[in-house]
């Protein structure tokens, strides 16, 4: 966690110059002139003149108090700028993960049980495509198809008329309608990967004696498969949640840009280019924290579903 | 430790107070929470030209002992005095790693698993010649000749030299392993369960080969095994291990016919005899082998021993020579009459 915060800070500090430089450039671009004194005053105001470690400590101290600083470009508190977008990022990511699981699990099981069947080959091939097509490209292609075939703009999370509307049932329903497509685009690569993991895990497990034993006890085949090897194969599967979350979240940045989804992605890109350090730093930090949480969750899940880990050391 | 009473014999290997403890690490910080006493104060010696077998059930420390002697792993404490071919005696256990190399030529190992012990990517020649190459022995042609000679010695055709191990059966692979072990004319061969992974009919072939080579090349074997029938076929003397300690050691015949330790008795009785007319009443031990990380008090065997008395629960017995050449670690060794197996 600590390492993540340092790294986030380092990353946002890496760009040469700071926001003020950009600001000055913008100002001169629009014809006004910012004097050196003014720039210095601005730097002082935001503490940008301090040595790096002081800046870092001040930043951390602020965050610990729940203050994420000001988004310089927007002249609004970071928390406010990020607010809704973060929430929507989560919604989109979770939707993508749910999609991934719903699709990957059954297909993975089918592929393993009917190894080398036509369905297995199709699943494997689709999986490969899913892996090979970068999500932003998939988004582009789908957008294009949507536009030419249905003459519909499939981007965004809300219909135009509801985008600025306050939250309500209608807007929620609107969101639900718009959600499947980004979820599909974001989830496809992960789905492909999970199908392969599930298939490989399950194939390993299918030959184990306990499966034969279960069969020898007279269990129906569906129960033999679903109760035993699938259950065991789920364990390594669960540990993938940890990296699935950050994977999806970071994937959402590019996809959001293409589909113009109101998530933190485009915001981060703009902030990075404008060197808005509080905003970018907060976003990177939050993403890092999400990763850590994801890893932690998958560890917990693993602990819950795998008694071997639960009882380790208790003997 | 007393001598064996056989005056003219030469001690090739003398192991004194060998110990190997493995730390048990647990949790996030890998803290050491205990120790597995895999080998706990083991002393024995091997004479030149003989076969000493270490027998015991899984986890008794016999393999660890063998690997400590070869310095494949470094023992926690103790001495393993080895008499080199030039007559000098060195302590292998305390030798710095850099000085082990000349010694390695004199002690070699035969492995249990004929599959994982041969590198699948190298030819028979590469495998068998490896010790020669590593020790810079001979020219290339001399190595080829030597490998051919070795292959013939173990009953393989020299023409197979260019093949890879996957073309061979388990028994043939074990022969390759033996050829590799013999490449540098070692005096001591440590054989770790050399036949337990093989089929019955092949076991006999390998055992015969080992006996023949011993006579032919004046080899000394330290034979590690769990199968008492196999042990009886190859050894001069047998040491029985239980939870990291030697509980009994004697000449093979004496140990099998007149064991003095209750564990040896139970072990012998538990071996299924391939003769339906001998379905004797077996001694079935209760319970499980003690945990080497948390052994019981006193004699480690007492919870399963049907002769146990109070002393066994409190005092740890020492390995004593109760008759010439017969060492037993049991408080009641002198008073009990135990059942062995007949001829």
């Amino acid at each position, binding site marked *: 966690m600590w390492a993540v915060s340092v790294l986030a800070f380092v990353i946002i500090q*890496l760009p040469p110059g700071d926001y003020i430089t950009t600001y000055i450039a913008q100002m001169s671009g629009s014809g006004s002139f910012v004097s050196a004194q003014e720039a210095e005053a601005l730097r002082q105001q935001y503490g940008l003149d301090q040595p790096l470690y002081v800046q870092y400590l001040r930043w951390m101290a602020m965050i610990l108090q729940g203050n994420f600083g000001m988004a310089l470009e927007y002249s609004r508190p970071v928390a406010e700028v990020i607010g809704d977008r973060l929430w929507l990022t989560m919604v989109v990511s979770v939707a993508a993960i749910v999609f991934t699981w719903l699709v990957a699990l059954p297909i993975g099981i089918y592929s393993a049980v009917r190894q080398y069947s036509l369905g297995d080959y199709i699943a494997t091939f689709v999986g490969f495509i899913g892996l090979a097509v970068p999500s932003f*490209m998939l988004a582009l292609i789908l957008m294009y198809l949507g536009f030419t075939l249905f003459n519909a*703009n499939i981007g965004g999370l809300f219909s135009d008329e509801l985008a600025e509307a306050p939250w309500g049932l209608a807007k929620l329903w609107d969101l639900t309608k718009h959600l499947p497509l980004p979820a599909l685009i974001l989830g496809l690569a992960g789905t492909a990967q999970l199908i392969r993991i599930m298939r490989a895990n399950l194939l390993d497990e299918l030959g184990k004696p306990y499966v034969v034993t279960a069969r020898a006890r007279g269990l129906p085949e569906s129960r033999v498969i679903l109760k035993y090897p699938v259950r065991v194969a789920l364990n390594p599967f669960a540990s993938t949640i940890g990296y699935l979350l950050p994977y999806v979240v970071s994937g959402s*940045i590019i996809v959001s840009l293409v589909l113009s989804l109101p998530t933190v992605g485009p915001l*981060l890109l703009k902030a*990075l280019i404008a060197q808005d350090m509080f905003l970018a730093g907060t976003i990177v930090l939050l993403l890092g924290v999400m*990763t850590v949480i994801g890893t932690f969750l998958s560890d917990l899940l693993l602990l819950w579903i795998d008694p071997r880990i639960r009882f380790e050391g208790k003997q | 430790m007393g001598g064996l009473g056989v005056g003219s014999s030469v001690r090739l290997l003398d192991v004194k107070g060998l110990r190997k403890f493995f730390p048990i690490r647990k949790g996030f910080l890998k803290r050491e929470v205990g120790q597995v006493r895999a080998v706990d104060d083991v002393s024995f010696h091997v004479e030149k030209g003989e076969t000493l077998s270490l027998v015991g059930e899984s986890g008794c420390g016999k393999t660890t002992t063998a690997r400590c002697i070869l310095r494949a792993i470094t023992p926690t404490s103790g001495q393993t005095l080895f008499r080199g071919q030039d007559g000098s005696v060195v302590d292998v256990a305390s030798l710095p790693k850099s000085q082990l190399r000349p010694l*390695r030529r004199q002690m070699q190992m035969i492995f249990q698993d004929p599959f994982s*012990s041969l590198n699948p990517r190298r030819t028979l020649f590469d495998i068998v010649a490896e010790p020669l190459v590593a020790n810079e022995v001979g020219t290339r042609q001399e190595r080829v000749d030597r490998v051919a000679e070795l292959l013939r010695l173990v009953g393989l055709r020299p023409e197979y030299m260019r093949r890879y191990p996957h073309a061979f059966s388990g028994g043939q692979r074990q022969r390759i392993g033996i050829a590799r072990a013999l490449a540098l004319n070692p005096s001591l061969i440590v054989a770790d369960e050399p036949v337990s992974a093989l089929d019955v009919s092949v076991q006999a072939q390998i055992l015969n080969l080992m006996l023949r080579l011993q006579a032919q090349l004046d080899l000394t074997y330290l034979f590690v095994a769990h199968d008492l029938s196999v042990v009886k076929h190859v050894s001069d003397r047998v040491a029985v291990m239980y939870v990291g300690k030697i509980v009994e050691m004697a000449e093979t015949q004496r140990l099998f016919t007149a064991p003095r330790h209750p564990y040896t008795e139970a072990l012998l009785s538990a071996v299924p005899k391939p003769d339906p007319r001998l379905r004797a009443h077996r001694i079935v031990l209760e319970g499980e082998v003690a945990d080497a990380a948390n052994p019981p008090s006193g004699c480690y065997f007492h919870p399963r021993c049907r002769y146990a008395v109070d002393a066994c629960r409190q005092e740890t017995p020492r390995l004593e020579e109760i008759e010439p050449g017969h060492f037993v670690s049991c408080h009641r060794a002198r008073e009990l009459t135990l059942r062995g197996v007949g001829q």
Partner: protein
Amino acid sequence: MWWRFRKHRVAMVSTVVVFLFYLVVICADFLAYSTPLASEAQRSLLPPQPIHWFDGGRLRPHVYGLAGRRDPVTFKRVYTPDPEKKILVRFFARGFEYHLFGLIPTNRHFIGVEGAPAEETLFVLGTDEQGRDVWSRLMYGTQTSLTIGLVGVALSLILGVLLGGISGLYGGVMDTIIQRVIEILRSIPTIPLWMGLAAALPNEWTTMQIYFAITLIISLVGWTELARVVRGRFLSLREEDFVMAAELAGCGQMRIIFTHLVPSFLSHIIAATTLAIPAMIISETSLSFLGLGLRPPAISWGVLLQQAQNVQALAISPWLLIPSIPVIIVILAFNFMGDGLRDAADPYGH
């Protein structure tokens, strides 16, 4: 390993595809017929001109000339092919000067039109907004994108094998430190990490500098996977009996590493490397697509696709999406090839 790989038909086909793509990389200048930067506002967003192979029953490849006029309603230029105006396409035609393989100066190109006026020229895949020829740019983009993958993987490989090897071989404190570093690097979402690093590149850097900086950045994450593979193989191989046998035979540490350990996991490394290349290509493409990677005037697939970023542009000129086809094909081919290699590398696999 080779014969097992050959049994894998898809992987073999993929290998051929990959090979062909790298042939394009080597011969990009030859295959292109106009300099990638030649722009002409007059010819912006021309649609692709399909090559007609036969003319009156004879093999006479030609394209139709395009007649442009401005739509009175939308004020956009609309081009219609004019079947009457046949522009002959020649093989090994003369064009701009270049050095073949960087050595042989020549001006011959695979195809081209010779000596035609400016408006009668060839745009097999159309042009972009600035009127640059998409086909020629695609050739150069292929060159950049595919070499960036290779260079990136080479860097990752060096880092990964070195650090993974140290980690697996020596263990102890070094292992712990390297493992922690890997964990931290992996726990950071990659795209923000790249974005942060890429945004840090100074604007005034030259194309070459940025090229290498981007390769460095994308290999920064790539090496962790390779290091893990190397370390894992080292650890599992160290447990094999044949390694102990070699040690007992008196082999030195170096001999054990190079005659026993390395050959045993070399195939795994090759497979892992093959699988890492497509990831690198995707990374570069994504970053450039975002405008954080290579920047014009450099040309890569990502840069090319950047023009296809908005739907309106796409709807009018869908050929801008064409560069995504080679991306998908190459990545698929690499994946199949890597998969085949991985299957073939595992001596104990079914």
